[in-house]
């Protein structure tokens, strides 16, 4: 919503022949934060990455980026009221490093998982619960609107969902195409039931994609749609409020990147401990498979 208003503000200011100019700023010098991203879902093991933020400098190269991964953290989990910590193992893939479980720990619905990351003398903790999934009723394949350039080969997916009572449910949507991995819909992956509580609703399943790639215009035209012949996996996850708040603020912030009129949005980390930004995300999810016919 805000985005539309800001968009219109932008166009109004453009009318006033506004002009833009590059400037120099002395950026504040401050220690860069630790960035933690961790997931656990029903039937899957935990997956955690730890990296550093990068201080603002004019150019950030690919090398700078690859050096951001932190491989010396001690990452451990406890389940519910257990006191025994399960340590995750660091694995490397090129420069990238990840922390995974090697003890057959699988997420279970109803469990609360406490994550502890100890690194360079800092300790960061966060907890998440795997909530009971709320399955989608059905997913229907519909033709893409005629206005699409190659609408003949594109389709859109519509999900039908009876939102359960009472109010206070939060969801996250991710999709996977064929052999790719799951991606969220950037800037728009989460839902709450503030206005749809208890109602039967339908909504478009927008295809997610990696944000590492540039969005060139041809790509953008196809963005969100699927191709005939695709096999699409739709992950629909119940999430807890702290996680929702993280994504909500994170998406609001990244969605306003480069938008000069946007107010400052501070991302709400789920972690305790100063100097850290991150999310520890439990998904209580269902995965639906949609095989889109070739014709």
């Amino acid at each position: 919503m805000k985005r539309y208003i800001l968009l219109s503000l932008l166009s109004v200011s453009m009318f006033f022949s506004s002009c833009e100019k590059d400037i120099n700023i002395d950026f504040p010098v401050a220690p860069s934060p630790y960035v933690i991203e961790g997931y656990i879902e029903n039937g899957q093991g935990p997956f955690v990455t730890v990296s550093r933020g990068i201080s603002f400098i004019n150019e950030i190269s690919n090398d700078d980026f690859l050096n951001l991964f932190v491989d010396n953290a001690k990452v451990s989990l406890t389940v519910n009221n257990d006191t025994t910590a399960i340590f995750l193992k660091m694995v490397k893939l090129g420069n990238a490093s990840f922390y995974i479980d090697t003890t057959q720990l699988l997420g279970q619905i109803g469990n609360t998982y406490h994550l502890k990351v100890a690194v360079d003398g800092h300790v960061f903790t966060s907890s998440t619960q795997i909530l009971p999934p709320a399955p989608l009723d059905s997913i229907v394949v519909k033709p893409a609107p005629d206005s699409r350039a190659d609408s003949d080969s594109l389709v859109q997916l519509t999900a039908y969902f009876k939102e359960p009572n009472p109010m206070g449910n939060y969801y996250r949507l991710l999709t996977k195409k064929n052999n790719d991995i799951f991606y969220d819909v950037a800037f728009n992956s989460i839902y709450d039931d503030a206005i749809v509580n208890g109602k039967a609703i339908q909504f478009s399943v927008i295809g997610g994609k990696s944000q590492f790639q540039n969005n060139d215009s041809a790509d953008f035209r196809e963005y969100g749609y699927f191709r005939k012949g695709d096999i699409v996996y739709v992950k629909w996850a119940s999430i807890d409020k702290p996680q929702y708040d993280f994504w909500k603020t994170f998406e609001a912030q990244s969605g306003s990147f480069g938008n000069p009129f946007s107010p400052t949005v501070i991302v709400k980390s789920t972690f305790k401990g100063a100097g850290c930004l991150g999310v520890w995300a439990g998904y209580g999810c269902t995965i639906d498979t949609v095989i889109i016919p070739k014709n």
Partner: protein
Amino acid sequence: MKNKFIFLLALLVSPTFLFAQQKFSISGFVKDAFSGETLIGSTVVIKELGKGINSNEYGYYSITLPTGKYQIVASFLGYKPIVDTINLTKNVKRNFFLKSNSIVSKEAIVLAEKAENNFKSTQMGTQTLQMEKVKTLPVILGEVDILKTLQLLPGVQSSGEGNSGFYVRGGGPDQNLVLLDEATVYNSGHLFGFFSVFNSDAINSVTLIKGGMPAEYGGRLSSVVNVNMKEGNNQSYHATGGVGLIASRLTLEGPIQKGKSSFMLAARRTYIDALIKPFVSSTSTLSGSGYYFYDLNLKLNYQLSEKDRVFFSGYYGKDQFLFKGERFGIKFPWGNSTTTMRWNHLFNEKLFVNTTALFSDYVFKIGASQSNFDFELFSGVRDYSTKVDFDYFPNIRNQVKFGAAYTFHTFTPTTATGTIGESSISPEKINRQYANEAAAYFSNDFDLTEKIKINAGLRYAFFQQIGPYDRYIQNDVGTISDTISYGDGENIKTYHRLEPRFSIRFQTSKSASIKAAYTVTNQFVNLASLSGSTLPTDLWVPASSVVKPQFCTQYSIGYFRNLKDDQFETSVELYYKDLKNLIEFKENTTGRLSANIENDFTFGIGRSYGAEFFIKKSVGKFNGWVGYTHSYAQRTFADLNEGKTFFARYDRRHDGSIVLSYTLNNKWTFGSVFVYGSGAAFNLPTSLVFFSNGTQGLYFENDYRNKYRLSPYHRLDISATYTAKKTAKYESTWNFSIYNVYNHLNQYIVYLDIQGDILNQGLKVQPKQITVFPFIPSVTWNFKF
């Protein structure tokens, strides 16, 4: 505390009934001879006593004196004074019809026109601007804007380049009570604040009170902006209008019954949309998009008898924004409407009463559609009010005001309706908030001794939120854990507040005085704004069990002196404001549909202080003013900025302006405005972070708030007004203005532009500034017949 009030009350009442000689009153109205328009705040002085009185908002004055022969002078800035000798042996009715200087010959710009109020009145921090004076100053895009002119006064800051929103003495944009013919205007801006809702042709005068707020005003912490619409010429029919770059105006006025009643109808509409249309091809993504605003002002008045007069005034304005993109369409209209009905009645020469019924409504709507998704959001505030205000003139030493007011508020939170595919969304009920607001006040402006004049007042304010309402109780993580439902009319929370108002003037010499003021104010309705400047989406939210009324104590002291036989008015004022129960959004609020928006608020305290310097010359061919403010505005919130004190967004160390106007001859008048201000505070992140899906995020330190400053703001505007033709029947003038003459690229906003691809060539981070208004010339043609 109690003793203080009793003392105050005693002080208020005691001097009122001192003498018991045979006395009579001189009373009447002060009006414009040509149009019959009321001259608000004109001065009526008894020469023998060197004492006078100001006419009230309806031009009424009354002076009670012992039997005798008196010379009485009625004057008003920009008008030729009338001197009259009155033999007072019975009550005398005397109406003064003053002639404007522009009508009488040039030599008549008499120095007898005194600007003595500057140092003689008890009023501090108050400025009145006459619309006619404002019209010779440079304007942006050809639109004369009274709120932008107010921003050139010390202590008043613009909320952003070219914006009509303003901050007064370190207070928020919602802390200004903007009144149009006594009706509250909740959103005073068009086009996201770039233009004010006040059509210059429909306005008589504007008064700004930023300190020492008299007891008849309340409900806002920082200031009162009292805008009076023209009443309309009751002698003859006239049309006034103008054609500008982006908008045109037309005002019609005239008598309904000559000398007794009149009407004024003003309309204004922009045509940005029509101007752009030919340049936008029908296949362009912007085709079908557009923006316009319009407003209408109507005022009628009728003199029922010598003692009764009724007024009706109304305002209706609307903004409409349309955007049609390939993927979605959006449309949002918003606007205010106000209606005022007033009845003036004179009980006797000494007691004047005005009874008012008011209606004010602000609605914002936004409608959007996107493939199988359609929705409309709306929000707003609606007031029904009634008030009664008495002016009592017991004798020349006292001017007493008392009255009461009541308002019923309805606040509509942002509410969504729409369809998603085949299912429709509408809230089972809209969780509106209802409130009763009431006040009663008493004040007396009186001479304690020859040198000391006091204005003492007391205002009682009452606010009550009533049902129906559902309050959602949130647990620690912010999930709704419980709901309390209040029934129809059920009392949810009641506040009683007493607000003492006190100002004193001590005359130190024939043309100088020292004044001091102490003001307590409470604010029961607040604007929930994320952006720092006012957007039409911002919600008005009442005090409730969660939101306590904002509270301000202001202390001010000043030295006022007129120089060169009153040609120059000068002043230095110092102020200190102590603010409590201030409202901000919690740290991580993104702005969302919220059943109880108060759950997103956090509360804190603030203080602001500063010094204001002002020199004004209002007479002669060459006039204008110079103002400078040095100020600080700080905020402390336990839950924001790590609990550390931070500067408010509108903290401005230096803020100055030079406003000049020069009348060369009958044909040409020149104007110039120079403005300088410290840069506004803004936030900068310290790091860029990456997530596994490739999305980037910004990291701010915990005490990030308003630590950085935009570069200082300055610009020069010039104007020339050419009177092409001026006869008794017809007048045609051209206004040529250049905004930002030396094209200083002021920073409207600074942001980070991040380009590139981190997996390949890397990212480039470039800070950029946006300038909204560079060098902008404009021309406007104005006419009058």
